[in-house]
């Protein structure tokens, strides 16, 4: 217990307290921190706040030491004072201040070294701030009130308070000026949202500048390619690294650079005019589309970043509106950029990341929409048709995974809990350290489930990632192969999905056959797991077919259908899933010239849950095995072959379902006949059966 002090000693101490410069400084900084903290909390996203968060952090850190020093001295000075409400509020404020400072440091740590700030620290920081406003406010108000009373008696005290206040205000003003100056000087990079001067802005009467694509921008005008690109920046270290790595070899990433797409686009430009390639651009190359690159006279019709990034992060995440009509019927926005984004130099890079992490509201609000979860969002591009504008004949449906899925057993209007949607298969949950991990907005997830939705968008293209040597292609293609075979496990939908191969194959044969009799083989194929038709996509290009082989015990091949020849063509007459789209004159649409397509001559694909049977038969008639017609002349699917003399039982029947992304004719057409290019073949499923051979007439 300290000795009792005289009144003059009290006054002396008070005056000393008021005149200590550090007190004024700490008070001014506290005021600044409080004000900016409130601004960050209460004001909508703005430029001042972006800089305030930086200055707030710097000041906050710099202020810890003087604060501690001041508080120690302050406590010492007033510890002997009577325990009034002033003293009580002071001590209480101290506790909050300590928590506020610690949480502030922790938040800084998270924003600098982590991937995002956590509620664990941001909440206490916010709560203590409000607490401080009350307690420290009361504490200071009393102190000032007392000082104003003392002021009348003592010129010295008056002066000290005045100095204190001035210093405090100066510190506040200084910080505000610095923040204000930053606000004036460091502004977000401005975009050049202009079409090239020779841009054909109205290629189709009455339609917008991006027609025949249905895609458009929120302004209806051009978007600077920079405003939708730079996905690498999103995947920069400490941010969405994992998601970026997944996206790199994904189909969305190479949507534009895809050698097939580029070739077909150039054929379309040559045959139909460069402006017509805008039709493709909405889904394959939006950055180039919106920057006005798909214009006559542009050599490659793709902006470099458009080419490199295809469906970039922002190309999906900046979409504000989609229409289930398909054909890229969406509205693209240009998200506001933070002041330090898209600037060169390590400091700018650091500050951009820092501001996003420390002040993430706008980033999350604009780039993560609830809509992204819906199948209708995907439908914008995964549903395609050719409109009269393009084919000049009339509306023709093209690939349409969305309606296909909607009509399937995977979609239940009445029982949403049984429905499996696009993202649940194609963007399964994966373990995550990504800032985007966790999602309380998804029905079966939580804010901190430590998972994010894979941005690999696994599908069926096992060709391009390797052909174009994309980063991580091998791992990616291995996953696609697993995917195609139905070996990819998705625990979160296991209760709603099916097990086993995606498209199982089953051979139906009698257990025995007599020499001289006919052996009928039925190969059953079922769409077991696929959420839409199998195969799907452009069926003028994609092929899946049954390869079947019957060998006897000595290895003699008695039947082989579905072979791929030396030129990489599938044998004539093979049982194939594909389409033969035709033009007005019945000729094949064989170079993906969809703008001339008026319908299909033939299409075979498996609707979810449905079955197809390929029939084969072997007879002992001893005729040319290539060209046998059975007696009835029935020409059901499958080739008819003859059993040879001298065969030895038992017979082994092997069947498999092959799949490839590109038919050979297209590759020949695109890259010149005799090209080495051929699409790899994946065996989706296979089966084997044995048939005993018995003597004639038994």
């Amino acid at each position, binding site marked *: 217990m300290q000795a009792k002090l005289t009144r003059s000693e009290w006054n002396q101490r008070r005056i000393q307290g008021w005149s200590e410069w550090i007190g004024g400084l700490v008070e001014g900084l506290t005021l600044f921190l409080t004000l900016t903290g409130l601004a960050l909390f209460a004001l909508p996203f703005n430029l001042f706040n972006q800089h305030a968060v930086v200055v707030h952090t710097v000041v906050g850190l710099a202020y810890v030491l003087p604060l501690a020093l001041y508080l120690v001295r302050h406590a010492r000075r007033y510890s002997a004072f009577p325990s009034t409400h002033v003293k009580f509020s002071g001590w209480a404020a101290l506790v909050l201040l300590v928590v506020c400072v610690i949480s502030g440091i922790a938040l800084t740590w998270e924003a600098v070294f982590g991937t995002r700030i956590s509620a664990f620290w941001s909440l206490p920081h916010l709560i203590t701030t409000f607490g401080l406003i009350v307690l420290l406010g009361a504490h200071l108000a009393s102190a000032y009130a007392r000082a104003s009373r003392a002021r009348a008696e003592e010129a010295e005290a008056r002066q000290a308070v005045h100095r204190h206040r001035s210093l405090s205000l100066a510190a506040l003003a200084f910080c505000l000026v610095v923040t204000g100056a930053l606000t004036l000087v460091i502004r977000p990079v401005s975009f050049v949202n202009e079409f090239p001067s*020779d841009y054909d802005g109205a290629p189709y009467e009455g339609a917008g500048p991006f027609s025949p694509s249905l895609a458009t921008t929120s302004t209806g005008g051009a978007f600077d390619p920079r405003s939708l690109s730079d996905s690498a920046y999103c995947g920069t270290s400490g941010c969405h690294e994992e998601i970026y790595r997944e996206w790199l070899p994904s189909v969305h990433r190479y949507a534009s650079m895809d050698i097939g797409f580029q070739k077909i686009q150039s054929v379309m430009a040559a045959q139909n005019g460069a402006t017509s390639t805008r039709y493709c651009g909405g889904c394959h190359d939006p950055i180039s589309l919106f920057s006005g690159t798909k214009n006559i006279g542009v050599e490659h019709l793709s902006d470099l970043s458009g080419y490199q990034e295809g469906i970039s992060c922002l190309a999906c995440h900046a979409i504000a509106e989609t229409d289930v009509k398909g054909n890229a019927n969406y509205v693209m926005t240009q998200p506001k950029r933070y002041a330090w984004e898209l600037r060169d130099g390590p400091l700018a890079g650091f500050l951009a990341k820092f501001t996003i992490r420390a002040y993430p509201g706008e980033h999350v609000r604009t780039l993560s929409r609830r809509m992204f979860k819906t199948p209708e969002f995907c439908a914008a591009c995964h549903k395609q048709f050719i409109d009269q504008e393009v084919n000049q004949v009339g*509306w023709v449906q093209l690939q349409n995974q969305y309606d296909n899925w909607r009509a399937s057993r995977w979609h239940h209007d009445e029982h949403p809990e049984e429905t499996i949607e696009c993202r649940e298969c194609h963007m399964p949950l994966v373990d995550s350290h990504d800032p985007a991990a966790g999602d309380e907005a998804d029905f079966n997830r939580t804010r901190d489930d430590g998972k994010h939705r894979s941005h690999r968008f696994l599908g069926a293209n096992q060709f391009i990632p390797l052909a174009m040597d994309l980063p991580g292609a091998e791992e990616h293609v291995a996953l696609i192969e697993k995917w195609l075979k139905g070996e990819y496990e998705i625990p979160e939908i296991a209760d709603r999905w099916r097990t086993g191969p995606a498209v199982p194959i089953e051979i139906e044969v009698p257990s025995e056959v007599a020499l001289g009799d006919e052996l009928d083989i039925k190969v059953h194929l079922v769409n077991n797991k696929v959420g839409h038709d199998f195969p799907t996509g452009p*069926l003028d290009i994609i092929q899946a077919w049954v390869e079947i082989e019957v060998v006897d015990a000595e290895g003699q091949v008695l039947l082989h259908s579905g072979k791929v020849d030396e030129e990489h063509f599938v044998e004539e007459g093979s049982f194939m899933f594909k389409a*033969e789209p035709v033009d007005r004159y019945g*000729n*094949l649409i064989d170079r993906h010239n969809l703008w001339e397509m008026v*319908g299909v001559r033939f299409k075979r694909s498996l609707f979810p849950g449905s079955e197809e049977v390929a029939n084969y038969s072997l007879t002992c008639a001893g005729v040319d095995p290539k060209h046998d017609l059975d007696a009835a*002349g029935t020409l059901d699917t499958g080739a008819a072959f003859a059993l040879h003399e001298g065969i030895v039982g038992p017979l082994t029947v092997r069947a498999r379902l092959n799949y490839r992304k590109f038919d050979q*004719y297209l590759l020949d057409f695109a890259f010149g006949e005799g090209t080495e290019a051929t699409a790899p073949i994946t065996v989706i499923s296979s089966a084997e059966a044995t048939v005993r051979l018995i003597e004639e007439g038994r």
Partner: protein
Amino acid sequence: MGLWRRRRKAILTVSALALAGGALAVYALRSRVKGYQAGEETEGLVDTLRADLPSAVPEVEFREVGREAGLEFTHFRGRRTGRLVEDMGSGVAAGDVDGDGWPDLFLVNSGPLAGERDPARLFRSRGDGSFEDVTEASGIDFSGLGMAAAFVDVDGDADLDLFVSAYGTCKLWRNDGTGHFEDISTRAGLDDWPGFWSGVGVADYDRDGCMDLYVCGYVEYDEAQKSGHQSQFGIDIPAMINPSAFEPARNLLLRGHGDGTFEEVALQAGAADETGRSLGVLFCDLDDDGWPDLYVANDVSDNALLLNRGDGTFEDVTTAALVGDYRGAMGLASADFDGDGDLDLFITHWVGQENALYQAHPREGGGAGGSAGRITFLDVADRYGVGFTGLADVGWATGFFDYDNDGALDLFVINGSTIPTKEDATHLQPMQSQLFWHSTEGRGRFHELGAVAGAFFAEEHVGRGGAILDYDRDGDLDLCVQLLGERVRLLRNEGGNERPSVTLRLRQAEGNRLAIGARVEAEIGGVWRLAVTDSQGSYLSQHTVGELHFGLGEHSQIRRLRVRWPGGEISEEGPFLAGTSVTWTRGERPVIEALPGFLARASEGPESVETEREFFRRRQQATQARLAEDYPQAVQHYLGALSLWPGHDDCLYYLAHCLAHIGDEAGAVRVWETEVAFTPGSNRGWMQLGLAHLPGGDPAFDDLDAAQAAFEHSLAINQEESRPITQLGVVALLKGELDLARRRFAEAARQNPRSVEARYLGGRAAYLAGDLEAARALLAEAHELARAQGLGGDSASSEGETRTGEALTAERALDDDSPLQRWRTLTTRTCDPDLEYQ
């Protein structure tokens, strides 16, 4: 007055000073008359012959690519020793020696009279725009003082043999068809004719199917007879380089026997032109009576026009025809430059002499009393801007050629002096060569555009021989130029093919295999244009033999081509589309090939964005007209579009369909042929060709073998498609090969299990084969399938579905009731094979 008295002295002084100053000023300021200086442009001089360039001149550049194309050849190694035989230079001949479609080059060499000389060389085109020296492998070995070269098929075996004229004896090599040559000069009797031989002309003048040769004799060069010096233009010229110092030599007319042997008949035929110092000859039908005439260019002596009487003799009509040009004539060209349907002449001359442009004026009915007076010529060189422009130069090789494909014939003139330089008598004075662009604006005129046509025309050389060829087969004409004592120049035409062209090769099955002398009229944009095979002369050189070039200007096709074959038979064909090379053998269907060097242009489209825009505008109009079924209009729009982008796949494909719709099946076939020529991977093009050859359309095209070949081609490109298999079944069915037809339809049905056609026609084949059971089964299947069509599957909105539920094809416009088309309406009938297939 008092003032005067008081100040008299001062006044006088001031006045005197003022006067002196004034005088000085007047003297200083008086106008001085500048003395006249040579070359001064004084008032009152006008130059009406000169004309300003029109605003738009072709942006075509001739880029020298000789070395990069592999033409390692230098003319005249060694020192000039001041003899006429050394100064005449040598020529170049262009022709397809190995039959690969690409023009090869033979470069004649010369050298000092005494001493070593480099040999002449044969360069084979590799087919990629480069050449390889195949002289040694070819067996041609000639190091004489070579003059002219001409490719000629002397033995009627369809390959090009080679004739070379020289100072000494001429040479003839026979080609065995593989590019290997055998020297048959002795057998041909050439050894009997030593001399100073220059220009060579080739024709079948007696129309016996055997090629004949006309060989110009220059002078009787005999150094012993001459000595001393003469003077020309202040420079001492030794007599040995002055042609006037020597007696003129006679010319040879070698009447071919068709086996590589000849009979020299010049004197009997009245074609020896003994008084002319001949350097060049045009051996073509100038008076359009079907018989090749002779026009001989003579140096320092009158030229001669010898009209072929048709009985093996010639009549000298030089004077009557007003073409006895007395100037020193060197190079010759002839073509219908003014488009009035006759051949005009262009002649290059010595320095100080204007070049001549003789416009032909045939006289109606003038032929009554023989050939004399049937034709006259008028020198219009100055009016057209090609006369006075040659005054400062010595002109040699020349030729009419449409280098910018605008449809008007332009001219080139290769210049080089015969006078030694003052500094070094072993060198002759170099000169700039000239490129004349023919503007048809107003009355028409040639403008010298050398200054904007590449470095070569700005440089000075001692030029001599030169030939026109399209060495890179890109549809524009290039030049190969022989320079005395220099490396050969290959001038690649860059930009000429921005406008389209068609290359034409006429062939005959026997005799005059290259149809030399055939008269071709091409209808381009409603105007008939004339060309005659191998009518041009140049100087000691031969433009690509057996090949004609038509620049199409703003048009996209030769609508009709009318050929008067040697002998007089006339045939017509067409259309022929831009960017193609057409080989038409008499009596056969023309074969269409895309010019290989033009494929890049055809796939990339026009250079300028404006042109590309315009192309797509026209294409759009065409499409709209086509869909509105206004096919004649669509055809016009497609043709307009194709003129800007020849070879455009979609335009060709749909143009052909439109032609078919308006009943021009011949045109349609030709256009589909063009389409597959440009895009050999065009499945649809082959399919359409196959369909066009099936019965049902123009019977002229019914050709099951051709149809089968086209379908097989289509199937080979893409065996995974069902349609060619079905159509091969149809071919087999029509040929009566029922087993094959049944197999084909069975395959087609396996390939396309939805195919009603395959079942229906398979049933028909079975029925015709007597297999009623199979026919019934197949017909039933077809029936069932036909009824099921149009019913959607269980998947929603699937690929290929339309709002009408049916494919939006235009196929049904065909005859639905023919036996091959009845399957389309199957659902309306029962499935009784007897009724259906009877």
